């Protein structure tokens, strides 16, 4: 098994952290993982993306042509990466910001209004966890609990302990939101 996910969006949408939590969850469950950020001139206020690979044997290339999943947090990200997703893959789209539908018919589209759900949960910044929750469901490689644990480890002890519960709820909401499309 070797699965790759691309997380993409604006800087500030928590894209890199979402990817890192997924990678950490994989590692905690004894899998091999790689997390590779893009970095560039538009790091600040521009777009950002990262590629996470989760596998049960050593990972060769952390650069992936055709990922099994894409999390597109804004329209430019969907435009840029939609075509590269492997046939049969899954695309989580932040439908709060992306107004168009996924064009591909050979992938499973999971529109999740991440901004709106986050606002509803009381903190607009947890939109990344909403999306990650949906992705976890779509990818179907790691149990949600593993991801919740990894999220806890990431936040614990860095002055962000109070946010753990909120993030957990966001992950779960995203997961169940995806359920609608993938059940």
């Amino acid at each position, binding site marked *: 098994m070797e699965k790759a996910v691309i997380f993409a969006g604006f800087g500030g949408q928590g894209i890199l952290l979402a990817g890192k939590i997924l990678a950490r969850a994989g590692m905690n469950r004894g899998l091999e993982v790689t997390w590779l950020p893009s970095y560039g*001139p*538009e790091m*600040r*206020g521009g777009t950002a993306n990262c590629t996470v690979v989760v596998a049960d044997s050593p990972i060769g290339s952390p650069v992936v042509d055709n990922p099994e999943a894409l999390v597109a947090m804004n329209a430019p990200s969907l435009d840029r990466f939609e075509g590269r997703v492997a046939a049969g893959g899954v695309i989580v789209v932040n439908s709060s910001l992306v107004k168009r539908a996924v064009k591909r018919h050979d992938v499973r589209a999971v529109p999740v209004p991440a901004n709106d759900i986050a606002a509803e949960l009381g903190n607009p910044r947890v939109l990344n966890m909403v999306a990650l929750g949906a992705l976890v469901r779509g990818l179907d490689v790691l149990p949600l609990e593993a991801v919740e644990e990894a999220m806890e480890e990431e936040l614990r002890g860095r002055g962000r302990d109070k946010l753990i519960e909120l993030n957990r709820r966001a992950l779960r909401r995203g997961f169940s939101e995806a359920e609608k499309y993938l059940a």
Partner: protein
Amino acid sequence: MSVEAAIPEGYVKVFSKPKALSDAKYTYCPGCHHGIITRLVAEAIDELGILERTVGISPVGCAVFLDRFFNCDFVQAAHGRACAVATGIKRARPDLVVFTYQGDGDLAAIGAAETVHAANRGENITVIFVNNGVYGMTGGEMAPTTLPGQRTTTTPLGREPRLHGYPLKISEMLAQLEGPAYITRQAVFDYRHIVRAKQAILKAFRNQLEGKGFSLVEILSTCPTNWRMTPVEAGRWVAEHVVKVYPLGDLKDVG
């Protein structure tokens, strides 16, 4: 701008983008004073009517994209070497108007020798020195100009002068030399200071046109991104704290 059409009659344009600037959007972060300073340089070029004989030298730092923003000839210099590159250009073609635009890491750390020696030679160039107290482009490391106690990624507990050095007052240092014609320190955190900074930049270019030699305008700037402040907070920080360590005003002016 196409919106212009919508302006009712009887209005005159009192402010618009200087001609020396291209249409390219800045790559600076939101609220960064680099943007103001870049524009002021462009305005000075416009006012002096020297666009067609000006060569700018971009540094390595957040201003590395400067050649995109300006409509004049440009040379991208290695980190810290802008004054040496400017010297090469100016000596080769004394009729050109040559300016460098450099950050504090570029000018005062790695480029300290080139800066000191170009100043000491009284090299007939104009230097715009953007002091934002950090290495902006590389992610907020300490600069020679970082304030005591200021936290940066390389001084996580705050700058401790006995360990990391004192805030380097390079303009005061250069003002000691015989070479420079004009060394001044300005800021752009409000309208009043912007107007003054503009006058200083104009003078620094005029000096060159008059063959007076090395002119340097230090401008206290912000780095909201790496200071972890909003742009408004960052401007206030300069006004309240930075100017205490780096007092504004002319440090040398041979007139």
